[in-house]
């Protein structure tokens, strides 16, 4: 419920539906009946936040407790922020309309680095000091989770706690602890020291960081009894893990507006650029029965007519055929469309593909990621050109005329030949269309090449690699465009400045916190929005703080350098990542976990068990 004071201004902003609340399945409780109020904040607009599965899971999980109430909070767009600041209306929670600063826990989900300034802006809009040290009372405790907290260092001074790994179990443990410490009137310091004893809880204030003369990290030293290494939380069994049966159904059109159910966590592939593939190990699957029951429940409670089965590589799911065979009869009957994002082309049966398209046909997307086989071997993307072309030919025969191809530039060892290879592969797909025997008359083919740039991320084999400077990336983009000789191939590219900033913060250390605060005070926010990203202000902020951003991106790190995230433990060992890095430079591939265990070390988190080593779940 929007605060009464804000309602008169709703017609003055874009998309007032972003701010009203009152959506179907939103949870309203009596605040007098709960011990802990949790404000789950997504540091971006309503449409993006409402598309995020993690928020839906934790929202339902906390609200399943009678003693706690979780509400949603989003970053107001600039027009609404101006009105809120002009009239002194603080950041509010969507369900109650109450000010966020009155909550016990304020949780941010950190999915991308370019949302960092929004966190500061939201804390400020809530009327709270942005620095954890200036928030002296026990509550609110500001916490964060999500992929970015594998290296929370650039945000370390702002968060009280971060939660690396799966949030399902640790959220409840943290709420229990806060409830206990709040009841006994403990201090914030007492609470934080106790929280640091919970597995998967990182309290940045309890770690001292020292630096070498050359600017690299010298040591990270725990204090106050905090553990030397913070091991990420890992939920062992996805069938018994909490999963929502209801989603809040937005009025407004949001980015992903459908039933989304995870089928497994982790990935067997080991693409060397992919952070998610390493952060979420070991692989854990949900049984087809559980997946189907969850899909059905959510469709019934929401009225959604689309299901998305979510994972890092859908066709690697052992139970996929069993699941689809059970599910398709009722989804087709109920006119529900099932989509499989992240579907690999090399191992998906043709008949299933046809059934899937019975309701609504979706687009065809391949992600070869690199233009030549050599470079695909470097990044361990084990897809061959023949596989791309033969699948494209099959798809064309089935009536498709549009194909999307995803590529990355700025990959280690990349040469001109590799970039030219992207244009060649796109051309080969066009040719495959014209070579088919029964080509439909009068129809043309369109191949869209989408070009991203590599951002080397922590906990990947590329964490030591230099990142191309923006000027170099622009040159490479232009070179690729000059190699494309047909109008049937279109190339879309990103502004490399976003990748640059992302790269700085992805592998940054605590000294960057000043830069983030400076940039935010200069007015930087919504940096992931091209119209908002202000490169000048960011470069000024680096200069004012005396920090060279290229120290974090353009430099090759040595294997023995202490990395700012070395005190985080995501299961995969440094030894394994070094081995993978060396293999990359020799253009040697590593087979998938299903073919051969690569010894990444993550099974240690699961008591030595890896889904791929135990018998298949079907």
């Amino acid at each position: 419920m929007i605060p009464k004071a804000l309602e008169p201004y709703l017609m003055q902003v874009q998309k007032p539906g972003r701010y009203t609340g009152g959506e179907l399945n939103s949870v309203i409780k009596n605040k007098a009946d709960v011990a802990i109020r949790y404000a789950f904040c997504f540091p971006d607009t309503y449409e993006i936040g409402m598309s995020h599965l993690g928020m839906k899971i934790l929202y339902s999980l906390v609200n399943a407790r009678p003693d706690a109430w979780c509400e949603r909070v989003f970053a107001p767009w600039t027009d609404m922020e101006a009105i809120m600041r002009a009239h002194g209306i603080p950041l509010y929670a969507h369900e109650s309309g109450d000010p966020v600063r009155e909550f016990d826990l304020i949780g941010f989900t950190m999915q991308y680095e370019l949302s960092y300034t929004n966190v500061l802006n939201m804390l400020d809009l809530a009327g709270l000091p942005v620095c954890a040290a200036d928030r002296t009372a026990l509550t609110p405790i500001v916490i964060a989770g999500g992929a970015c907290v594998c290296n929370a260092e650039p945000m370390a001074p702002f968060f009280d706690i971060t939660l690396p790994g799966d949030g399902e179990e640790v959220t409840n443990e943290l709420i229990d602890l806060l409830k206990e410490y709040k009841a006994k009137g403990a201090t914030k310091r007492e609470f934080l020291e106790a929280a640091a004893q919970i597995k998967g809880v990182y309290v940045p204030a309890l770690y001292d960081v020292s630096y070498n003369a050359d600017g690299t990290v010298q040591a990270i030293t725990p204090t106050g009894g905090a553990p030397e290494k913070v091991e990420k939380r890992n939920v062992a069994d996805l069938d018994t893990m909490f999963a929502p049966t209801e989603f809040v159904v937005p009025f407004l059109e949001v980015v992903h507006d459908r039933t989304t159910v995870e089928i497994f966590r982790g990935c067997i592939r080991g693409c060397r650029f992919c952070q998610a593939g390493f952060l979420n190990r070991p692989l854990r699957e949900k049984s087809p029965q559980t997946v189907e029951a969850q899909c059905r429940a959510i469709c019934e409670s929401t009225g959604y007519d689309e299901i998305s089965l979510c994972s890092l590589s859908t066709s690697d799911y052992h139970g996929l055929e069993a699941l689809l065979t059970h599910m398709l009869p009722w989804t087709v009957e109920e006119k529900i469309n099932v989509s499989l994002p992240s579907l690999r082309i090399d191992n998906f049966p043709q008949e299933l593909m046809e059934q899937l398209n019975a309701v609504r046909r979706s687009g065809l997307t391949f992600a070869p990621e690199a233009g030549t086989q050599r470079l695909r071997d470097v990044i361990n993307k084990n897809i061959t050109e023949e596989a791309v072309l033969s699948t494209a030919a099959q798809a064309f025969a089935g009536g498709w005329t549009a194909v999307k191809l995803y590529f990355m530039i700025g990959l280690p060892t990349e040469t001109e030949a590799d970039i030219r290879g992207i244009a060649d592969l796109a051309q080969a797909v066009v040719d495959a269309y014209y070579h088919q025997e029964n080509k439909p008359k009068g129809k043309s083919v369109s191949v869209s090449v989408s070009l991203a740039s590599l951002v080397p991320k922590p906990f990947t084999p590329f964490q030591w690699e230099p990142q191309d400077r923006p000027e170099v990336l622009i040159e490479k983009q232009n070179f690729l465009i000059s190699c494309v000789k047909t109008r049937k191939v279109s190339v879309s590219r990103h502004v490399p400045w976003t990748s640059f900033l992302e790269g700085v913060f992805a592998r940054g250390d605590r000294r960057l916190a000043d830069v983030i605060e400076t940039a935010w005070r200069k007015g930087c926010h919504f940096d992931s929005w091209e119209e908002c990203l202000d490169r000048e202000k960011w470069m000024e902020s680096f200069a004012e703080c005396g920090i060279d951003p290229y120290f974090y991106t353009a430099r090759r790190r040595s294997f023995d350098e202490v990395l700012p995230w070395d005190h985080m433990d995501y299961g995969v060992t440094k030894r394994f990542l070094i081995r993978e890095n060396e293999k990359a430079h020799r253009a040697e591939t590593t087979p998938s976990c299903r073919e051969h265990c690569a010894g990444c070390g993550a099974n240690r988190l699961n008591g030595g068990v890896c889904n791929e080593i135990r018998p298949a779940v079907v």
Partner: protein
Amino acid sequence: MRSVRLWYKKSGLAIYTSHLDMNRCFTRAVRRARIPLWYTEGFNPHPYMTFLLPLPLGQTGLREPIDLRIEGEITDEEIRARMNAALPEGLEIVDVTEPAQKANEIAAADYTITLTFDAPGEAEGFAAGAAAVMESGELNAEKRSKRGVKTVNLCTLVHRFSCAAADCTVQIAATIAAGSTVNLNAELLVQALLAAFAAQARVDITRTALLCADLTAFR
């Protein structure tokens, strides 16, 4: 297959849901309510659902029609009960009928409009002035249509108009042209009147009924 006309009320915070979003919202509600819908045939089957006259963003509607095609046995009362269990707050089905008239027979609509001013004096002054302007038969304003912007005398699109001041508010009751051929957004009329007196007020607009050309209720 039969057609049914659902009459809904849109109020509270639901008024900030745009026409396109309403479409999505009702599509999901009929699914949750398990109304046996008739689906179009073709590559992309979808239920047949038509909002007869879009209600502008930010306005309350007391009796707004949607046509649905259904297949299978279900009573009107059952449709109403199931839909109301499935709709979010602020949306309610108030009646279910057989469609008696076609959408293009909608020619006008009744509105009640509340203007809230900062001071009672402003309200009285505005009420007297607005009544006089409407009496004069001339109130020109720029009106946007698909063919571009042109200046229109709004009085020609207003069938009935009365207003009264009480404290800081002015209550307007008006019957205004509506429908697919000639349509006037009540918001435009109110803003034109406010502009004529350089006045500012909070505006709350409620569409109370849709009417035919002879100003009887559209059914």
